[in-house]
């Protein structure tokens, strides 16, 4: 019934959201979801919900489910080397199983 796939999770500032979405589109990913949030890391605190002066610096989580692990890895590589070297953000991969594999 189900097909194995991977979920690529990217947590970045909203400033980088267009760049991430462009990478996903270029790699042929057909869909993703975006969730606003906050967080804490080596670049300090990012508030969730309370007023934050610069909207572009708010945290978003982008989740994309893909069937092809290599594609996911190559997107993650580009992100970590080209964008996240000196900008806040992390990337991880996790195993999932999906229905209607044709959608992914």
């Amino acid at each position, binding site marked *: 019934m189900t097909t194995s796939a991977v979920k690529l999770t990217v947590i970045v500032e909203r400033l980088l959201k267009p760049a991430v979405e462009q990478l996903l589109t270029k790699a042929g990913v057909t869909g993703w979801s975006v969730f606003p949030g906050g967080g804490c890391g080596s670049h300090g605190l990012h508030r969730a919900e309370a*007023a*934050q002066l*610069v909207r572009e*610096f708010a945290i978003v989580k982008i989740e994309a489910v893909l069937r092809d692990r290599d594609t996911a890895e190559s997107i993650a590589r580009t992100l970590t080397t080209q964008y996240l070297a*000196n900008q806040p953000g992390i990337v991880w991969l996790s195993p999932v199983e999906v229905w209607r594999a044709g959608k992914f």
Partner: protein
Amino acid sequence: MDLFLDFLAAFGRQLQSPTLAFLLGGMAIAALGSRLDIPDAIYRFIVVVLMLRIGLGAGIAIREADLSELMLPALAASVLGVVIVLIGRLTLAPRAGPRPEDGIATAGLFGAVSASTLAAAMVLMEEDGLRFEAWVPALYPFMDIPALITAIVLAQLARKSGKVRPRISAIIVDSLRGSALSALGLGLVLGVIARPDPVFASFYDPLFRGFLSILMLIMGMEAWARLAELRRVAHVYAIYGLTAPLVHGALGFGLGYLAHLATGFSPGGVVLLAVMAASSSDISGPPTLRAAIPSANPAAYIGASTSIGTPVALLSIPLWIALADVIFSL
């Protein structure tokens, strides 16, 4: 001596303004650990409404204005934006640690303009009865954009990787597309070509002071919250944040005064020019710099601007008003 006492009296009177009190109140409750916070959606709406209000007000008045008068002050604004960044390049950047970008980006923000400081100055001047040409707030982008571009160009020169040339037009377009400048521009255009006077009078103008008081609260809480970050960077940023607004404001006042002598630029206009010069951007400037100078440390430039530059610029507004009261013997 009398002049100086007049000045002190005027300055003291202005400092009691509720606008500044909300700023200090925000800092105080943040320092006391209050859990009060303003929802992000409200904050973003407030910024849009304030910028629309400033734009609409300017646009409505521009209909009857003689726009040739605008030329000299607009030139002065642009010159100020560039010169302030160049001064920062020469004074701050060499003292600001190993990476010159950090200092250059900081100077870029201080050359740019703070929407909240501009709005606060408009309210304080209205309370003082100090009038200005209605188009003066529209000088905002004439100072803001040249300052950001100068900083970006200087940062690229500093990196000596002469290859990548900044696409200046792209930066201008991107700046104008930001939320705050878009709202200002939209208000301006609607003010000139539509007849928004009823909605201006029933909504945008009455909400102006109130929304500004909430924004001041937010700026105060944010200034306090960012102080911690500033402690992680060199002392020189704190010193720059404390002194630069006064120096830049004086420069702005001086250039404005020349425009006054040359073309009769109003005393209120001179004060607003000084305030824009003194102010440092903390809403729309930072993302432009982050995108264009990714190697600069945001803790340095945002800390210097939001935690110190903006409070100092806000508290210096009464100074420029008092100075105008004395110099133009109002």
